[in-house]
């Protein structure tokens, strides 16, 4: 092996720059074509920065502008400097990694110490505005509006918007934050005075409106000063004044109709009255470690936690072992010169991987169906595959192997091709048997490339949501416990706890995903450490 520090001249931490090589000065800055490419790319970066800065400037977002300027300056600095060669290669991928992977992860970690979720989405001010607007009641001088219910994006799940026409004919769009006037060109108003189309919004059909009826009835557009707009029926809305009003002095909300007083609880992010009743609209607050302690101490969570963890580890490790053995075995079987039909074999063997996996999980589920499933029909069996814990687990592992082995087969094939045949031949000439040559020459070299792949295959399968969710949905469930199924992974279990039934609890879900991350990271680090001698990380 060549000494490690060559080729790093001038790099930080590397050897000092060597004396100029003969003729080196001619090409020090690369070829003219290379220079042109560099200029073009930097020009593109500058143009992109300008394009990105304009809307930020228009909105007066100075933090955004300075981030854009900083990143652009960094790009110019790195690529115009003759030094920092490794950074030139790492920068593009790293910038994307930071923006779209690391930042979301950090954001998730910061969410994990809050109560963010349904009923705790915005700030305290937004919660107050929404409480006041929701308590609006019609009074003698109420203004009436013609109403069309619309949504942003998806009609079934998108954020609700009230498209309103005032008595004077002005059109408005009202969402949870307030009213915005619509430009006359942006909205089409019918003869009856209702808005039938508006730029950027999807007007709901009658069926879609009735599907979201409850949500619409509870929806209110705050209009400031303690008043708001609510719907009365499905085609009209009125603006009235609130019966619930916030009083800054006592930091409480008073209901003028019933006389009840709801005091702000800044630790939980809710308004509660003396009887402990809380208002549905709360706000987002830090709750410290309570989401994490809930995972460990809440009896409804930790009762099944360790059983699921054990199956989760077995599932991930079992999958890795199966796909590794099958994939490598097939790669080795085909790694011989002059095997007839090798190309056709290879393409056919990789076919499962070419099939869309989400569709194949659903298909396998149907094949394992007890009554008319293909597996039972083909082998003349009568097994309730997905109804028994152990056959369901076996089926899941089998399907996961079916989908996963081609990947390891491809990786192993690639890695085998990179091992010079001379090495194995030399070992064979020295008297090693086929197995010995494989065990002591091929396998260690293979593992250099394969270990990280195996570790990340493990990590991937540890959180293989699709496999379990699409095949078994976590089931079969033991009688009396609909929360923890026999094939549940931590991630599907978390999904059910966090998003199933009781509404979104993003803060709690984030805490559990941080927890899962720690477990996977720990297992992976230990296994990488174990195999460190195989790697060339140093």
């Amino acid at each position, binding site marked *: 092996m060549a000494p490690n520090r060559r080729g790093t001249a001038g790099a930080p931490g590397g050897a000092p720059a060597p004396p100029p090589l003969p003729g080196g000065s001619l090409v020090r800055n690369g070829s003219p074509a290379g220079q042109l490419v560099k200029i073009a790319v930097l020009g593109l970066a500058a143009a992109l920065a300008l394009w990105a800065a304009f809307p930020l400037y228009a909105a007066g977002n100075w933090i955004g502008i300075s981030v854009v300027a900083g990143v652009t300056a960094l790009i110019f600095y790195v690529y115009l400097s003759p030094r920092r060669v490794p950074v030139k290669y790492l920068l593009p991928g790293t910038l994307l990694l930071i923006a779209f*992977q690391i930042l979301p992860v950090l954001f998730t970690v910061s969410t994990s110490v809050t109560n963010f979720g349904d009923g705790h989405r915005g700030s305290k001010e937004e919660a107050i505005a929404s409480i006041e607007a929701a308590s609006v009641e019609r009074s003698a001088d109420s203004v009436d509006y013609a109403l069309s219910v619309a949504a942003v994006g998806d009609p079934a799940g998108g954020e609700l918007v009230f498209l309103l026409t005032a008595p004077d004919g002005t059109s408005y769009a009202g969402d949870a934050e307030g009213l915005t006037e619509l430009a006359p060109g942006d909205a089409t108003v019918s003869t009856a005075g209702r808005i039938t189309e508006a730029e950027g919004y999807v007007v709901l059909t009658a069926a879609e409106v009735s599907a979201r009826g409850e949500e619409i009835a509870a929806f209110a557009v705050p209009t400031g000063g303690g008043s708001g707009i609510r719907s009365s029926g499905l085609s009209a809305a009125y603006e009235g004044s609130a019966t619930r009003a916030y009083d800054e002095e006592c930091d409480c909300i008073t209901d003028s109709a019933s006389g009840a007083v709801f005091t702000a609880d800044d630790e939980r992010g809710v308004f509660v009255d003396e009887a402990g009743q809380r208002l549905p609209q709360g706000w987002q607050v830090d709750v410290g470690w309570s989401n994490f302690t809930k995972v460990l101490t809440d009896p409804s969570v930790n009762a099944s936690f360790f059983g699921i963890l054990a199956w989760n580890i077995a599932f991930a490790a079992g999958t890795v072992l199966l796909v590794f053995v099958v994939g490598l075995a097939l790669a080795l079987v085909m790694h011989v010169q002059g095997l007839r039909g090798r190309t056709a074999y290879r393409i056919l063997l990789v076919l499962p991987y070419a099939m869309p996996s989400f569709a194949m999980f659903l298909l396998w589920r149907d094949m394992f169906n007890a009554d008319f499933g293909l597996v039972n029909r083909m082998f003349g069996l009568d097994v309730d595959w997905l109804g028994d814990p152990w056959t369901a687990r076996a089926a899941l592992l089998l399907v996961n192997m079916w989908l996963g082995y081609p990947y390891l087969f491809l990786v192993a094939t690639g890695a085998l091709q990179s091992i010079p045949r001379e090495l194995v031949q030399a070992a064979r000439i020295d008297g090693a048997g086929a197995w010995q040559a494989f065990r002591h020459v091929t396998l260690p070299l293979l593992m250099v490339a394969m270990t990280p792949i195996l570790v990340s295959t493990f990590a991937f399968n540890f959180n293989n949501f699709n496999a379990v969710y699409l095949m078994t949905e976590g089931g079969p469930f033991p009688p009396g416990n609909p929360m923890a199924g026999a094939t549940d992974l931590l991630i599907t279990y978390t999904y059910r706890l966090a998003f199933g039934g009781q509404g979104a609890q993003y803060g709690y879900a984030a805490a559990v995903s941080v927890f899962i991350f720690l477990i996977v*990271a720990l297992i992976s680090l230990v296994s990488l450490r174990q195999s460190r001698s195989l790697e060339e990380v140093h």
Partner: protein
Amino acid sequence: MATTTGNRTLRWARRSGWRHLVIWVALAFALFPILFVVSAALNPLGTLSTSQLVPSGFGLDNAVRLFRNTPFGDWYLNSILIALANAAATVFLSALAAYAFSRFRFTGRRVGLFGLLLIQMFPQFLAIVAIYLMFTTVTEYWPSIGFDTPWGLLLVYLGGALGVNTWLMKGFFDTVPRELDESARVDGASHAQTFFRIMLPLVTPVLAIVGLLVFIATINEFLIASVFLRDPEAKTVALGLYGMISGERDANFGMFAVGTLLIALPTMAVFWFLQRFIAEGLTSGAVKG
């Protein structure tokens, strides 16, 4: 005469006959579910309960219904364009990074490599809320890379370009003899020339494999795409097909099978196209030189 043939057969069986046998067993396991999809796609009745392993009839009704009743053509084009763009960009970005990690020694190299592995282990699935909120802002400022555009989706995918792919490539780069690129440097090539002219051609097999893996992963990606693409025409095949059978599974099964096969076709085409690069084994040739 007969003994010679017998001997030859025996020798063939010992040399490569058993290999064929093993492969045939593996093929049977690999292909029977696919045969079932083909059969279901051709089944004129187009329902799940009437589908069998061996086609019981032949008809293109399912395909006709798929194209007539759903915007499948749009989904298809979206999927392929996004997957190709993501594969090409990911291969390029991770090859750059892998070259740096393989050939240079710098501060933070070890930390960087382990960091890449670790960050990949965070369940992306639950970071989706953060990504969603982030892109709500992005859509506000730059609608052309926001929701319902392939560009925003591509950016999120590229956030994961460095990661396991970089490791895979680095492992391969490490097995390419340093003497090759060092002699190029001695001959006066700049590091960029070494990378593009010497290194990349030598590592074509691993570039092909990574490109294929990313292409397939993108075609199958479901969760992030479902957050990003909400317009019916902007959807990918994965989203479209899932929506189709989440409602009427039994009745739409034939259409679902046709869609499954159609989206498998480009993947097979890409594999077929990359096959010769994988097979060429350029590295072993270069060592002899």
